[in-house]
C-alpha cells in the first residue's frame, strides 16, 4: 500500500473535484487540489526516506496490487499482467522531482487561477496529471507504464486547451495530442516486440532476458530500442516530433511549468533510462538517441533566439535542454541525464513561474515587444529570472545547471559513443543557450528597453502574494543548490547499464564551455526583436499536411463506399422480394405452405 498511496491520493482528489467541484467554493477546491498533490509528496518523501536510509545496499521494492490481465494458458503464465509498482533509485529521483515540483506549482496555481471560473476543474486535471505521471514513474511493467503514459497525454491535452473559449487553444491541444500519439504508436510497437520476444511485460524481467538473450547489435534489439526512442521523441518534443511543444504554451502558465517543462516532457528521458539495457545492446539506437539530442539542442537553441514571445522562448529552451539529456543518454551517461533532468526541472519551473507572474500582472501578455523595463518595477521577477537564466546558462560554480550540464559534456567527451564532435555540438549549444538567455534577460530588464514602447500596463490592484512568493523562493534556492546534491551517484544505484563512472569533470573542457556560455550572453544582449520568425510548421505543412489533404480530397468520393452501396442494394432487393411474398392473401399462404412441405419431403426422397 505504501507505493500505491502516492499516485492514489491525487487521483482520488481529482475524482472528488471533477464530480463535486461545483459544490465547493473556489478557495476550498483549490486548496483541496494542493492537498492532494502535497500529501502525495509527503507520502513519497516518507517512502523514499524509509526505504533508502533503511539499508545501504537497498536496491528495489516491488508492490503488487492486483492481477490486472490474467492469462490462463499454461505456456503464457508469466504473461499475466499485474497492477504493480516498482521503486528503485531511478524512479525515486523522478518521484521526488515530480511530487515536489508539482506541489510548489499547485500552490502557485492557487494564486494564478484565483479569478478563473473553473478552478475546480483545473485542479482536477492537475491532480489527475500528477497521479498519472506517478503511475508512469512507478510502473512495474510496460502496460502500467503505458497507462500512465497515455494518462499524462490526456491531461496534457485537457490542460493545454483549458481556456476552451478560444478555438486556437483547442487547436494547439489537438496538435499536441495527435503529434504525441505518433510517438505513442511507436512505443506500443516496442512493447509488442518485447512481449512477442519474451512473453512478459515486466520491465525488470524483460531487461534481464534481453541482456541474456539478445546479442549486441542484433536487429531485434535495435528495432525495439528505436521503437522506444520513437515514443520518447514524441513525449519529449525532440526532432522530428517537436512542433507541438511551442504551441502547448497556450495553456495556463503553471501548466506549462509543470507539464511542458518540469515533468511530463522528461518522461521520454525517463523511459530511455529505464530501458537502458536494451539501448546498450544496440549501438545504432544509442547513436540515434545521441544525434537526435544533438540536432534538437542546436535547432531549438537557434529557434529560441528567433522568438519574440516569452513563453515560446522558454518552450524552445526546454526542447534544447531535453536535447542535452538525450545527448547524454545516447552517450551512455544515464546518471548525468537524470541529474540534468532534476536540476532542469527546478530552474525551468522557476522560469515558467516567473513568466506566470508576468502573465498574472500583465493580462496574460507574454510578447517581449510589449513588456520591458521590469527591473525596478518588480524586483522579485528580476531576481527570479536572474537566478533561473543563470542556472540555465550554467554560470560557473554557484548554479545548479552548471554542475549537471558540465557533467553531461564531460561524460559525452569521455564516452565511447561520444567524443569530440558531440562535445563540440554540446558546447555550441551552450553558446546558443547563453545567447537566447542573455537576449531574454536584456529585453525584459534593460533600463530603457530595446523596444521603444512598453505598452502593457500592470493590472490594477494585483501584487505578488505569498502563494506566489513561496514557491518562487524555494525554487530559486533549489536552482542554486541542487547541483550540490549527489543525485547522479544516487541514480547510479539503479544499475544504469553502460556505466561510466560518474563525476568525471574535465576542467579544461568545462572552462571552454563556460566561456562559450558567457560569450553567448554577450552576443545575446545585442540581438534585437525579430520581425519575422522561421516557421517549422510550414515545413511540416508542405511535407505531410499538403499531400495528406490532397489524398483526402481524392478519397472524398470514397470509392470503397461503392462496395457498401452494393451491399445495401442487394439487401434492399431481397427485402423487396420477400416483402412481395407477404401478399396478405390466405390462398397464397396456403399454397406456399404446401409447396414448402412438398420441397422438404422431396428433398427427403432424393437424398
Amino acid at each position, binding site marked *: 500500500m505504501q507505493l500505491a498511496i502516492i499516485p492514489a491520493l491525487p487521483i482520488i482528489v481529482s475524482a472528488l473535484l471533477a464530480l463535486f467541484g461545483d459544490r465547493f467554493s473556489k478557495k476550498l477546491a483549490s486548496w483541496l487540489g494542493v492537498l492532494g498533490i502535497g500529501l502525495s509528496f509527503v507520502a513519497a518523501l516518507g517512502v523514499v526516506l524509509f526505504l533508502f536510509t533503511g539499508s545501504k545496499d537497498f536496491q528495489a521494492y516491488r508492490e503488487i496490487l492486483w492481477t490486472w490481465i490474467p492469462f490462463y494458458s499454461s505456456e503464457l503464465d508469466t504473461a499475466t499482467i499485474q497492477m504493480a509498482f516498482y521503486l528503485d533509485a531511478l524512479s525515486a529521483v523522478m518521484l521526488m522531482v515530480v511530487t515536489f515540483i508539482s506541489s510548489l506549482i499547485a500552490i502557485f496555481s492557487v494564486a494564478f487561477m484565483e479569478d478563473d471560473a473553473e478552478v475546480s476543474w483545473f485542479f482536477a486535471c492537475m491532480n489527475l496529471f500528477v497521479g498519472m505521471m506517478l503511475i508512469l514513474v512507478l510502473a512495474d511493467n510496460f502496460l502500467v507504464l503505458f497507462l500512465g503514459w497515455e494518462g499524462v497525454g490526456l491531461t496534457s491535452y485537457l490542460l493545454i486547451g483549458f481556456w476552451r473559449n478560444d478555438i486556437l487553444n483547442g487547436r494547439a491541444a489537438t496538435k499536441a495530442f495527435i503529434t504525441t500519439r505518433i510517438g505513442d504508436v511507436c512505443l506500443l510497437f516496442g512493447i509488442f516486440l518485447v512481449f512477442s520476444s519474451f512473453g512478459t511485460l515486466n520491465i525488470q524481467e524483460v531487461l534481464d532476458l534481453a541482456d541474456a538473450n539478445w546479442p549486441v547489435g542484433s536487429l531485434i534489439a535495435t528495432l525495439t530500442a528505436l521503437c522506444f526512442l520513437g515514443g520518447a521523441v514524441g513525449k519529449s518534443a525532440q526532432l522530428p516530433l517537436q512542433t507541438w511543444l511551442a504551441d502547448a504554451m497556450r495553456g495556463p502558465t503553471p501548466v506549462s511549468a509543470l507539464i511542458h517543462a518540469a515533468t511530463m516532457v522528461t518522461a521520454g528521458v525517463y523511459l530511455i533510462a529505464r530501458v537502458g539495457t536494451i539501448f546498450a545492446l544496440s549501438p545504432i539506437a544509442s547513436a540515434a538517441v545521441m544525434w537526435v539530442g544533438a540536432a534538437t539542442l542546436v535547432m531549438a537553441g537557434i529557434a529560441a533566439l528567433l522568438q519574440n514571445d516569452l513563453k515560446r522562448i522558454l518552450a524552445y529552451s526546454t526542447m534544447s535542454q531535453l536535447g542535452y539529456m538525450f545527448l547524454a543518454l545516447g552517450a551512455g551517461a544515464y546518471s548525468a541525464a537524470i541529474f540534468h533532468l532534476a536540476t532542469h526541472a527546478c530552474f525551468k519551473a522557476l522560469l515558467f513561474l516567473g513568466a506566470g507572474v508576468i502573465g498574472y500582472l500583465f493580462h496574460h501578455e507574454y510578447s517581449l515587444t510589449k513588456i520591458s523595463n521590469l527591473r525596478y518595477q518588480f524586483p522579485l521577477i528580476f531576481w527570479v529570472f536572474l537566478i533561473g537564466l543563470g542556472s540555465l546558462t550554467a554560470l560557473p560554480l554557484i548554479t545548479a545547471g552548471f554542475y549537471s550540464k558540465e557533467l553531461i559534456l564531460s561524460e559525452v567527451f569521455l564516452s565511447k559513443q561520444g567524443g569530440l564532435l558531440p562535445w563540440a555540438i554540446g558546447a555550441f549549444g551552450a553558446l546558443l543557450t547563453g545567447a537566447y538567455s542573455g537576449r531574454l534577460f536584456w529585453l525584459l530588464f534593460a533600463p530603457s528597453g530595446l523596444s521603444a514602447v512598453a505598452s502593457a500596463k500592470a493590472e490594477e490592484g494585483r501584487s505578488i502574494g505569498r502563494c506566489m512568493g513561496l514557491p518562487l523562493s524555494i525554487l530559486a534556492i533549489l536552482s542554486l543548490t541542487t547541483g550540490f546534491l549527489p543525485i547522479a551517484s544516487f541514480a547510479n544505484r539503479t544499475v544504469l547499464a553502460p556505466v561510466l563512472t560518474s563525476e568525471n569533470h574535465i576542467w579544461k573542457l568545462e572552462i571552454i564551455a563556460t566561456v562559450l556560455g558567457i560569450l553567448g550572453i554577450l552576443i545575446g544582449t545585442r540581438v534585437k526583436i525579430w520581425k519575422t520568425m522561421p516557421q517549422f510548421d510550414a515545413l511540416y505543412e508542405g511535407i505531410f499536411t499538403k499531400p495528406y489533404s490532397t489524398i483526402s480530397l481524392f478519397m472524398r468520393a470514397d470509392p470503397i463506399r461503392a462496395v457498401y452501396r452494393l451491399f445495401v442494394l442487394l439487401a434492399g432487393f431481397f427485402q423487396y422480394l420477400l416483402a412481395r411474398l*407477404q401478399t396478405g392473401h390466405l390462398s397464397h399462404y396456403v399454397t406456399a405452405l404446401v409447396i414448402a412441405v412438398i420441397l422438404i419431403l422431396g428433398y*427427403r426422397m432424393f437424398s
Partner: protein
Amino acid sequence: MTAFEWLLAPIALGITVLLLQAAFARSNRASLAISVLSLVTSYYWGHNYFDQLILISSVAVIFFACLKEGSSEEFKILILLSTLGALTCIHSDNWMNLFVGIELLTLPIYGLIAWDAHNSKNIQAAIKYLVLAGGSSAFLLLGMAFLYAEPGSMALQLGSAKGSLLLFVGIGFKLSLAPFHLWTGDVYEDAPLPVTGFLATVSKIALVGVLVHVNPTQAVTPVLSAMAILSMIAGSLLTLRQQNMSRFLGYSSIAHMGYILVAWLVGGNIGFYLAAYTVTLLLIFWMLSWNPESKAGSLGLVFGFLSLMGLPILPIFWGKYQILLTAFSSEHWWLFGVFVFSSLIGVYGYARLIARVCLRSVQA
C-alpha cells in the same frame, strides 16, 4: 398428485371459478385477481425454467390487456386455457399429450385474435391463423403418426425421418420459421396488442420447450439448418423497411426464432437466450400497451429495441454471444456466418425504428 398435476390444478381451478364468476357476478377486478392468483399459485409449484417463463408472460399479458382496455372474464379464461396448453406441451412425455397440448395452446388463440369482433381486421387475422395453423396441425399429426408407427412407441423420439420432417413442419409453423413465416406479419399486425404479446411470448416458449425435448438427428439437421438460415436472413431483411411496430416485431421474431433454432442445432444455451428474449419482448409490449409516446415509454422501447438488436452488454447480446461461441467451437461455419451476418443486417431496421420512436411518431 404428481408435480405436474399440482402445476395445472390451480389454473384449472382458476378457469372454473372464472366461468362461475362470469355467469353470476361479472367484475373486471375480481377476474383479474382470480386469474393472477391462479397463475401465481401455479408459478409457486413450477420447477421448470420454461414453466416460469410461460407463467410470467401470461401474467404480464393479462396486465397489458388491463392497461390497454379493460378486459372481460372471457379473455382471461382463454389466456388461462392457452397457458394450460403451453404447460401441457412442455411436460408431455409422449406424442399424444404433446398434440393435445399444442392444440389446447392454439385453439384459444383463434378466439383471442378475433377478440374485438367488430374489427374486421381481427376477424381476418383470426381466419388466416385458423386455416394455416389447422393445416400445419394436420402435418404435425401425420408426422406424429409416422413417428409412432415406425418404432411403435409413443415416446418422444425422432425415430422416423419422414415423420420428423412432417413434425417440424408443424413446429416450424408455430415458431414462424421460414418458409412457414408468411402468416406472422399479418397476424401480429392485425391481432389486438396483448394477444400479439401472448403469441410472441407464451406460444413461442412452449414450442421451444417442446424442441428441447428431442435432439437433432441426421435426417432433420440439413433441412432444419436450411430453415434456420432462411429464417435469420428473411427475418432480418423483412425488418429493414417496416414501419408498423407490431408487424416489425413479427418479422424480428422470425429472425430470433432462427437464432434459437441455431442454438438447438449446435447444442448451445437456449434457456438464457429465450429468457433474455422474453423479458425484452415483455418490456416492449408493456411500453406499447402503456404509453409509447411518453418519455419513459419511449425510453423503455429504445432500451428494448437496442437489446433486440443485440447491442453489447444488453441481455440478448449475451444470449447471442453464448450461442455463437458454441457454434464456433462446434465448427458450424455456415450457421455461424449467417448468424453474424443477419444480426448485422438487422441493426439497420432496429436503428430506423429507434429513430422513429425517438421522433415520437409511434403507431402501435
